[in-house]
């Protein structure tokens, strides 16, 4: 009897998986590329900063105590 309940669970799981709406990989790739292109400008770790002072982590100009 345990085998039947195991199988029922499997059927449930597979039905759920079959019901999932999936997109073709080509469409997903297209959308991912669009996203990367769109966000590229704002991605400082990829495109860098326009000016040194735009970088909040850049050390500011040093000054020494005389």
């Amino acid at each position: 009897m345990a085998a039947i309940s195991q199988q029922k669970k499997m059927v449930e799981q597979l039905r759920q998986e079959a019901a999932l709406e999936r997109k073709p990989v080509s469409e997903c790739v297209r959308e991912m590329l669009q996203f990367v292109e769109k966000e590229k400008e704002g991605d400082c770790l990829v495109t860098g900063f326009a000016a040194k002072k735009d970088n909040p982590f850049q050390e500011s100009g040093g000054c020494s105590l005389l």
Partner: protein
Amino acid sequence: MEEQDLTGEIETLKKKLAEEQGKLSDADLILSCQKIEPITQVNIKVRKVLKGHQGKVLCMSWSQDKRHLVSTSHDGKLLVWDAFTTNKEHAISMATTWVMACAYSPSGQFVACGGLDNKCSIYPLLEEEPVTKKRLVGTHTSYLACCQFNTSDHQVLTGSGDSTCVLWDVESGQMIQSFHGHAGDVQALDLSPSESGRVFVSAGCDRAANVWDMRSGQCVQLFDSHESDVNSVRFYPSGDAFVTGSDDASCRLFDLRTDREVAVYKKESVLFGCNAVDFSLSGRLLFAGYSDYVLNVWDVLKAKRVAMLYGHENRVSCLRVVPDGTALAGFKDSAA
């Protein structure tokens, strides 16, 4: 239902799924991106060093204010830093060691953390003595591996060595929803940036990454192509995919919409387990920290390593890109 009918249905469904997978597999991410301009240089330098932890740093989390961050270590210390000045703003000694999980609340007023004590506790940072105002959010039956605030300061999602994830209400300490399905310790989780409050992904020692519906508690998608423990998981910035880092020395990109693995980031020379992963803001770069002291930077679209960042004398245990993408913090065993 008769056993025969069930077996028959199982066969039919499996065949149907295999057919569908075949039809959908009409392209390859890496091949499709061959014409894209490669990343020619990665200008990332160490700008700040945050020294202060005595023991191995196990977890870290950035504040939404993009300048503060919290880190916790194996010796039970929780430190809150101002990353611009490198000053420590808070130091809390916890009653437990191996604080493997920590998270900054969206408002910046609280930090949640936990570890070998099996508990997730929350500390209010605005109080004079946060340690005295500690509040218990929830308890698991094994260690707390990871935690994250769910869209507001009022709910925390936890992942535990007891193989479950739980969504807690902070105010009442009640369990809102529990997530059962992993066959081993949960090691990491991440909330969807696009399906806020509705979807999250968890990964663990059963080599699987599970995608959950937060309202029903159901596991809606499961990905188990890794060959060893999955230590880290992070959603792609668009929310359509997520990456995992595993002891099998690879990182894998899984796309939710097509329900499959779409890229593997590995190299023959990369032999050590990956402990931490995160994306740059646009998702073009994947930062991965490994047990051989290196932080590899991968071009997500070409599956090629574009840089190796050193500056760490020990195992990179956790890393996180700042919310606005301006920087990356990586904690090695005792300093950032």
